[in-house]
């Protein structure tokens, strides 16, 4: 009986036996020859033979076993051969003495806990001391000689999930709680914990002291993490953290291996993992035998790192040999992939893999192999396979489509103000089209159609119509036309255009029949395709650009109204009276129409039911969509161009957000002028005030070099005009340019003029100035 198995016994093999019922916990006796399995319906002792488990004893006796046998946890005393303790689900703590002569080995029954006892733990060196932790929030320390608890530790009604005596500190134990806390207690002081810290979010299911390092405590929680804490310092410090894939039910340090620990999970995942805490991303070894969750794990011998026992809900008891474990590292391909700021791509992979494809086609854009500039120093204690990897960096082509060229060009060329609304739209549409962005281009065109004045959408339509045979245009055409845009407006425009054209033919055919409504509805249905379809269409339809002829053809006709005197001010300048500017636009737009030969008079007289406000929600959605897609440029540009037509529809904060993002982008691309224009045109007070910040310029008098303190252009010390243009001898009140060599200068344009014809300084100092 007393044969001490020495640590080096690596004999034995991976084996298992069937239990009659699911196990909840297992424990081994000190000499590692027997294992006890406990569960709701099982409580048995098995002997560990050379190549099989042999049932030794069934402790579940009696005709109708009571709930006291329904074990949540079991522990075999590590000093006393015959002593076992179990924690019952009904709140009882039971000790068992195998030396009792009768069949019933139950020795004491403690029913002091009100709810399920989750854990029992014997003191590692003290024979008679037993600790229990329960769902009712109490931990109790029992003296087995007294047959009652000697002290009670209160966890303030938080359920206790695990209690563990420290291996090295005689008086210390750790308790883990359902609310994520871990407490350290001194067994002599039941009034208050020594220390408490929050270890996990959600319950901490388990904890385990390191067998050698006295300060190390491993905890596992429902948040799928295993953490190792250094308790020697003042504040518990998290030194390692392993992220697993399921809630951690048990954690056990591996004997003789300082960095290793074994875990099993509460749910879903049935494997047992052995981790090297320094390599938290991949398990060191895995045991994959169980078919249901593993509920108990224990190293067979406290000095033997090669044999692990486990019990499971699948009603089996396993002995795992370390040599049979699977090593995930061997199967893993260490690879890394990352995008750089400028669209570069770095890729690291095992060297063997990279060299294997030496004959591959080189990436056209340039593929630089970087030498490995640091090595992780191989650590002999770390039994991980060492892998060398090669790093490749792929640089994106300078003119690749991923670049933001279109952004810069668009920003430079867009017109946001200074012309009538319709022209701005047309211009921007053209810009977008030239930059090969048909969707954006179409959007602009459509905006023009929608928000220009009632009669305005007619010209392109009418123009087209005239080609089709001069059928007089009916009101409902434009109605149907508008409606056809609405449903899919925010997703894509090409199909809408199609359906628009389609609708035209349709309405022509049906001209005699009453009911533009019916047609409109029909169009609604027609345009409602899946987003996916629409997008794919967009790409395929590049060839069909002829379809765009419809809006495009309108351009030449538009020029008649270009120089109309009543061109509205940019809407941004009338933020206080949106209604006024709207009506103004109306009146302006109506006039040129009359000179328009192709338009029939009836068309002009027609008062449309669809006011621009009808489209506001659609446009708002569209803007949201663009912003969402990252094209904040479009959102802001449209916002500015539409001005009061849409501004009220969009919440101020969103607008501000868009403006800020766009301005930020512009400044990153050093498009200062555009950015300033945007700031100026914006109607958000938060944005316009960007221009108000740090506008003070401190200047020194060019004669006496003293600071100019007063306002105005005359220095109050030397009473001379400061900053006089060297060419025209007037005070410069705008842009002043000066030579950095002789510090003479003047009006920008004057100096430019001057230096075109002469190399010398206009002031006559003889310096050879340069203007670049």
């Amino acid at each position: 009986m007393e044969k001490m198995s020495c640590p080096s016994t690596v004999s034995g093999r991976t084996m298992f036996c069937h239990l009659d019922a699911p196990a909840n916990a297992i424990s081994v006796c000190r000499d590692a020859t027997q294992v006890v399995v406990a569960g709701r319906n099982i409580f048995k002792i098995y002997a560990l033979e050379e190549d099989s488990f042999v049932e030794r004893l069934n402790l579940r006796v009696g005709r109708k076993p009571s709930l006291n046998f329904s074990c949540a946890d079991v522990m075999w005393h590590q000093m006393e051969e015959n002593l076992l303790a179990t924690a019952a689900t009904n709140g009882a703590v039971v000790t068992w003495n195998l030396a009792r002569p009768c069949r019933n080995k139950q020795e004491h029954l403690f029913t002091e806990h009100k709810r399920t006892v989750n854990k029992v733990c014997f003191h590692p060196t003290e024979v008679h001391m037993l600790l229990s932790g329960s769902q009712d929030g109490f931990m109790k320390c029992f003296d087995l000689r007294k047959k009652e608890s000697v002290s009670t530790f209160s966890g303030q009604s938080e359920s206790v999930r695990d209690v563990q005596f420290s291996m090295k500190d005689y008086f210390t134990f750790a308790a883990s709680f359902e609310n994520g806390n871990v407490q350290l207690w001194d067994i002599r002081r039941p009034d208050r914990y020594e220390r408490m810290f929050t270890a996990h979010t959600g319950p901490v299911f388990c904890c385990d002291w390191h067998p050698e390092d006295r300060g190390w405590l491993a905890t596992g929680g429902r948040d799928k993490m295993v953490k190792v804490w250094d308790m020697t310092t003042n504040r518990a410090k998290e030194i390692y953290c392993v992220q697993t894939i399921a809630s951690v039910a048990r954690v056990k340090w591996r004997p003789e291996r300082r960095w290793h620990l074994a875990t099993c999970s509460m749910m879903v995942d049935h494997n047992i993992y052995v981790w090297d805490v320094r390599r938290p991303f991949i398990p060191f070894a895995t045991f994959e035998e169980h078919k249901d969750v593993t509920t108990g794990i224990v190293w067979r011998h406290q000095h033997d790192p090669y044999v692990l026992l486990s019990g499971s809900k699948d009603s089996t008891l396993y002995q795992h040999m370390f040599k049979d474990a699977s090593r995930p590292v061997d199967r893993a391909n260490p690879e890394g992939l990352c995008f750089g700021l400028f669209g570069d791509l770095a890729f690291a992979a095992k060297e063997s893999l990279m060299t294997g494809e030496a004959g591959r086609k080189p990436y056209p854009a340039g593929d630089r192999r970087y030498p490995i500039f640091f090595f992780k120093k191989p650590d002999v204690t770390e039994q991980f396979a060492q892998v060398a990897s090669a790093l490749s960096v792929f640089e994106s082509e300078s003119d690749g489509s991923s670049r933001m060229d279109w952004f810069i060009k668009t920003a430079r060329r867009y017109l946001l103000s200074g012309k009538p609304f319709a022209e701005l739209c047309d211009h921007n549409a053209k810009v977008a089209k030239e930059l090969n962005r048909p969707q954006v281009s179409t959007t602009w065109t459509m905006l023009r159609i929608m928000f220009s004045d009632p009669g305005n959408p007619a010209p392109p339509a009418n123009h087209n119509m005239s080609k089709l045979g001069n059928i007089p245009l009916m009101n409902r055409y434009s109605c149907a036309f508008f409606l056809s845009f609405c449903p899919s407006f925010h997703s894509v425009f090409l199909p809408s255009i199609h359906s628009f054209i389609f609708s035209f033919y349709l309405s022509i055919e049906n001209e005699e029949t009453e009911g533009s409504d019916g047609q409109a509805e029909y169009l609604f249905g027609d345009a409602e395709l899946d987003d996916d379809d629409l997008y794919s269409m967009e790409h395929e339809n590049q060839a069909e650009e002829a379809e765009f002829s419809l809006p495009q053809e309108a351009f030449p006709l538009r020029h008649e109204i270009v120089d109309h005197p009543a061109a509205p001010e940019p809407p941004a300048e009338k933020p206080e009276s949106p209604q006024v500017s709207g009506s103004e636009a109306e009146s302006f737009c109506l006039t040129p129409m009359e000179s328009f030969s192709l338009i029939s008079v009836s068309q002009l007289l027609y008062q449309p039911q669809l006011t621009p406000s009808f489209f506001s929600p659609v446009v708002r959605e569209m803007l949201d969509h663009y912003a969402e897609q990252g094209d904040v440029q479009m959102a802001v540009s449209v916002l500015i161009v539409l001005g009061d037509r849409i501004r009220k529809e969009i919440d101020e904060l969103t607008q501000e957000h868009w403006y800020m993002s766009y301005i930020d982008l512009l400044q990153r691309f050093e498009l200062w002028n555009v950015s300033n224009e945007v700031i100026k045109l914006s109607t958000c007070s938060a944005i316009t005030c960007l221009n108000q910040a740090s506008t003070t310029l401190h200047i020194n008098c060019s004669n006496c070099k003293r600071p100019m303190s007063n306002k105005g252009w005359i220095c109050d010390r030397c009473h001379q005009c400061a900053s006089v243009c060297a060419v025209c001898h007037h005070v410069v009140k705008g842009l002043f340019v000066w030579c950095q060599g002789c510090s003479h200068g003047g009006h920008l344009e004057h100096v430019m003029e001057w230096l075109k014809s002469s190399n010398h300084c206009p002031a006559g100092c003889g310096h050879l100035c340069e203007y670049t």
Partner: protein
Amino acid sequence: MKEESAVEVPQPLPSGPSAFIPAQVILDEGARQEVMTDTLLSVSHADHIATIMGLHPAYLGCFLRTQNALLQPDGPLPLPWRHYIIIMASARHQCSYLVKLHSSAFQLAGGDESWLRGLHCAPPKIQRLQTLNKLLAHRPWLITQEHIQELVCPGADPRWSLAELIQAVVLMSHAHSLASFIWGCGIHPEPDSTAEQHPPSASPAERLAQPPPPQREDPNRQEWTEAVNEVQLLMEKMMLVQQQEEEFTPEEMVTRFERERTESILEPAEVVRAALPDSISRFVQDPDFIYQDFSPRGEQSPPTMRAQDYSWEDHGFSLMNRLYGEMAQLLDEKFQVVCALTYHTMAMHTHVDTSTLRKALWNYIHCIYGIRHDDYDYGEVNQLLERSLKVFVKTAACHPEKTTLRMYSSFWRQFLHSEKVHVNLLLMEARLQAALLYALRAITRYMT
């Protein structure tokens, strides 16, 4: 198809959100609890449910968060589907409040109107949920891994993914338990919906006959003192239970559990089933399938579920967290809040530790759904929950549509309405957890 059974009789608009609780009381009691919390303000329109729950603002907050998360765009199921599933689930408990509410939400979300003509018009994939819906609503302990397999396994066509399924399960059990709350609190239909819902107080006649629960202002003297004594008695019992040190044999404990479970007298008396209005019946298949006492004794019936073997905290959460992480957190928070909710008051007494009472209610509901807590002495249930309360709880939990004003007002006569609403909250959440546990256990088994 049934024909329209009756002409719609014009009814006076019910006043206030609930048929059981006078509107004035809600205002009064609510005001005491600072009903104008941020949570309430954040929802643009406080519906009746929110108004009633507003009596317990701490709870209302996480309830709304959960519900919003369930119905917000993120998630595996399309929005109209989610509303449709709720319609389907609440129809099982004939809760026209929810059916109405979500029918319009369904249409708003762009659902195909034709589905609302009845279950047969919904896509087959949704129809396949019927069995699960039925079981979840009435006898969740019958859910097995085969039910899950049927829906999820690769051969099934049209197939449910696990992520979709778990969302559907949460939606259904949410709707079932919410239906319990709605019936249990006698919540009126929203004013904008047509008054097709017969108020839970059944006939107006009954409503007239039944005096409202006694208010403090005009206590019927004798009844009042009687009631005061009841509270006194209950408090003494609670003290007793808390101090209790006596031991019971395990056999005794089992018997007690069994007794609580099978108290068949508690079955609501009137078994006469009115024909379902068409607006509801078209979403229900097999309307005769209703709650039946959980009985582990039968041949093929499943064994009692042990709370220790499959608990929400350990197992339920872990599984849910994997499949529908955000919801697991929210539900966990909600369960914690509802279990911890207390104001340390009982009727006219303050500074009372009500934990035993709340525990008893919670475990009693789990008990009628066949979940047994090993570490709980079911004798406490018998001591603490008076008969009329049990009748109410069991009816509201198992046959919510049969809850009447009489049941509501006959238990805890002297308690505040907010305390009765508290009972309803516990009831709803305990029921939700029980149903979820069974469903999740089946899914776990399917996955292993």
